[in-house]
């Protein structure tokens, strides 16, 4: 049988996979080369000793009842921050999602580009950066953290909401439109009830994310468990630091497993 000589696909100039791989390898090498990582310092005997001592200190958490009470208060504060932040985000997200979506084919949607730009800007700045910015006017404490969560999540939810509004089945709305019902009522009585379950599920999903985010937000001074962590770590009080870390991990694992269980429960 005659075999056709074919060039090796990996050596062709238009092998996009090869170019992408080469680019990524160069990126990683350049990263390690340009960062002054001082890995020798990390793997020195002295630093290994320090890691050992640190881990040893973490193994003896403070379980004094009065301290545990403080931890519980901070955990509740973290949960409240995430809940209020998510509610704010859902309200403002919905308010912005309405002008950010094209409701029907002939909808001019004049403000669509502007609201989308606003939503993108809100979304692209992480919660923690928002919190650091808001500290200046809202002061230290959970209020800044709550607003930071609210602002970032407004961007995320607004975008998701407007996508579900645009993708909603248009039948009921079109029927009302032909009857001459004004646009505001069409949204309230046709589009909104149709997409409400989806909006709720997006909101719950973001709430879950926000609990995790709220736990660490306090590190820059935004209240909750994070603020306690930064406080005790700054004072080198390792027993308290260890308790806060454990509380954080318990909170995150709890939220993760609850969401996993509820998902499984709902799928069944």
């Amino acid at each position, binding site marked *: 049988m005659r075999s056709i000589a074919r060039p090796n696909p990996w050596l062709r100039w238009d092998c*996009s*996979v090869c170019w*992408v791989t080469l680019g990524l390898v160069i*990126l*990683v090498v*350049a*990263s*390690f080369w*340009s*960062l*002054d*990582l*001082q*890995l020798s*310092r*990390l793997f020195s005997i002295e*630093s290994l000793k*320090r*890691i050992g001592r*640190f881990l040893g200190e973490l193994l003896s958490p403070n379980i004094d009842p009065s301290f545990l009470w403080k931890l519980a208060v901070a955990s*509740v*504060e973290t949960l*409240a*921050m995430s*809940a*209020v932040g998510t*509610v704010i985000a859902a309200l403002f997200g919905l308010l912005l999602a309405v002008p950010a979506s094209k409701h029907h084919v002939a909808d001019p949607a004049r403000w669509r580009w502007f609201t989308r730009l606003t939503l993108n*800007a809100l979304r*692209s*700045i*992480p919660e*923690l*950066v928002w919190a*650091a*910015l808001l*500290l*200046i*006017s*809202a*002061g230290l404490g*959970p*209020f800044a*953290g*709550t607003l930071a969560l609210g602002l970032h999540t407004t961007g995320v939810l607004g975008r998701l909401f407007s996508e579900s509004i645009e993708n909603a089945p248009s039948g009921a709305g079109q029927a009302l439109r032909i009857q001459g019902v004004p646009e505001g009522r069409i949204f309230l009585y046709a589009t909104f009830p149709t997409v409400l379950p989806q909006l709720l599920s997006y909101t719950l999903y973001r709430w879950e994310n926000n609990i*995790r985010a709220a*736990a*660490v937000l306090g*590190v*820059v001074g935004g*209240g909750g468990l*994070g603020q306690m*962590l*930064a406080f005790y*770590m700054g004072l080198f009080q390792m027993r308290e630091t260890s308790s806060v*870390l454990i509380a*954080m*991990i318990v909170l*995150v*694992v709890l939220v*993760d497993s609850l969401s996993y269980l509820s998902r499984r429960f709902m799928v069944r």
Partner: protein
Amino acid sequence: MATATAHPSMRDPAWTGRVFWAAVFLVLLAPALVATEFKPWIFFQADNLKVTARFVGDFFPPAFGTEFLLMVVKEAWRTIAIASAGMALALVLAIPLTLASTSILSISSLPGRMHAIPFAVRQLIRWLLILLRSIPELVWALVFVRVVGLGPAAGVLAIGLTYAGMLGKVYGEILESGEAHATTTLLRNGSGRLQAFLFGLLPQNATELTSYTVYRWECAIRSSAVLGFVGAGGLGQQMDNSMKMFNGGEVATMLVVFMLMVGLADLLSAWLRRVIQ
């Protein structure tokens, strides 16, 4: 509300229900508002308003000195470099852990149930992955800043460990959700586990695995900027410094550079994911 008093045919049938659920919701939310010290009016107190106005007024014009811009570009590159190096570390950790924990590659489970020891090893690795990813990267970074000192090493290690946990879990899910037929056939006919992976499992799932990795790289850039706030270097650290000095112009420039950087990474990763499809 006009609809409530209008002609019966115009009345909103769901009105009472809506009012009831709104009230329940508000009652539940009230304690949370207290707990978060929700006091929007403090924004409008005179002294607060003055500080805010000065800081926000400083945003315009943003800082545009050549020296400052060079510094910002250098720090932006450091942010990307921390993210990329962290991803590389995460891959080095996640790939062997995934290979060791994938139950499709188990030889003892071919005839039926997996043996106790390999099962225990796989379960242990899964718990390790859960532990790695359930500690947020910011907390890892705080810990490493304490141990190895301020600087990019803390950021690289933090991203490496958290993302190893995430990648390991999702890689495992991708590998196990696919068709296992080719791989088990290879294993049954005596090929090694690594061979079965390279010629059965990997080609099947390569696009999905790469696309998830690229997406995670994009997330790593975002979080590496945030890690700067606890002293891991890069754009975040400079932003933190400028905020502490109330230098609005510098903050504005860095925010714009950060948004551009994230936007570019977003476009690049979307393009890459399209190319490999």
